[in-house]
């Protein structure tokens, strides 16, 4: 069966690629477009390492078929830092709190935490923990990550 033409936008950049029907969006990003920041953890939607934004909604890119990306806007971890301003505050705070070790879960946490702060710049700890419950970390542990996100929120809403 012939390949499927997909015209999509990744981090604001138009991308025209060919894919197979049974490839995932994660395969498309990593293998066809060359954006390897997004990681594959479990491949079954449990770990959140492959988290991206698909038309502004948080999804596991391992559970999206590549052809579904046609006409959609995708944001990956590569689209979070700003070429002018440098790291996003969430990234900066993860660094400052040493909230990563092996780093495989980090891109997913960055994308998910930024999406939360875009919706709610001042979330309480419970909200942060529930929002990030779909992102698993096997080495750092969650406490440093949660503190880093709280600190990022504090910086975004200093009156807190």
């Amino acid at each position, binding site marked *: *069966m012939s390949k*499927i033409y997909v015209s999509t936008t990744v981090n604001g950049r138009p991308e025209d690629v060919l894919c*197979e*029907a*049974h490839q*995932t969006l994660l395969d498309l990003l990593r293998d066809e477009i060359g954006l390897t920041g997004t990681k594959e953890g479990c*491949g*079954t*939607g449990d770990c*959140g390492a492959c*988290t991206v934004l*698909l038309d502004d*909604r*948080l*999804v*596991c890119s*391992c*559970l*999206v*078929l590549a*052809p*579904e990306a*046609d006409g959609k806007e995708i944001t990956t971890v590569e689209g979070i830092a700003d070429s002018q301003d440098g790291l996003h505050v969430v990234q900066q705070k993860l660094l400052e709190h040493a909230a990563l070790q092996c780093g495989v879960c980090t891109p997913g946490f960055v994308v*998910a935490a930024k999406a939360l702060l875009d919706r709610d710049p001042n979330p309480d700890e419970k909200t942060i923990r*529930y*929002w*990030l*419950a*779909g*992102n698993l970390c096997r080495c750092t542990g969650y406490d440093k990550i949660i503190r880093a996100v709280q600190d990022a929120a504090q910086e975004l809403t200093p009156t807190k």
Partner: protein
Amino acid sequence: MSNFGYVAPATVEETLAVLQQATDQGQRTQILAGGTDVIVQFRSLDNSHRLFVDIKSLKETNDVRIENEHIFVGAAIPSGVLNENAELKALFPGLLEAADLIGSTQIQGRASIGGNLCNSSPAGDTIPALIVNSALCVLATNEGTRTVPTENFVTGVGRNCLAAHEFLLGFQIPRPSAGTGDAYLRFIPRTEMDIAVAGAAVSLTINHDGICERARVSIGAVAPTPLLVSSAAEALVGTTADEDALQQAAQACSDAAQPITDKRGTVEYRRKVVGVLCRRAGTIARDRALSNRN
């Protein structure tokens, strides 16, 4: 030759034509909504060739229509989107809470109640909540549409009444009358993101004299399919839905359950817990009903 395909038809007619043609040619089709079950199963259990038919581009499967007599909820709407709809949440808090129990933020960006039903797991959390709200499944067929009560949709573990050339458009749910409240509770050994050991949904209507005049009770994860338990409803109708009546409804649920023993729980445990869940969900539904009496 690789025989994977993907199409995202723009209309119901086109979708039906694609399904019919594939069926006629002996090609396997797979309806795709949020994909949170379909893609996992495809990647882990059965990766055989098929045509993915994505129904998310259809107007009908994304529609929410809140009308005087009925509410229509499209089959493919992600639960995260449904839970941002304050009007729906006020009408069917139990159903939306059931949807909100399933999966992480990421999963809720994709998973739909239509998909939860069509996956037809005994433990699908939204199914008992749809059943107690008397939701009718609206199926697209070559003849137009046909409706199936949700309690008759699932026919076995992972099996349902959809024919190969049909698909689910959405749900038509009667607008709850004044004094109606619903609730769904499940038991899992963790705090979230797990599969129900047992679940129970209750919807009650309580009149101005404080008497329950309508009740529906449904249980999940304790039989091959979610069950509508009319004996539990009968135990509630005509009462004030007090502790005694709720206890009788709970017993009826325990009696109706036909659970299995597996890694999530034993027959005895599930039988007991499903009754407890019925009683507790009944209490929440009753309190919601009382506060909805205008």
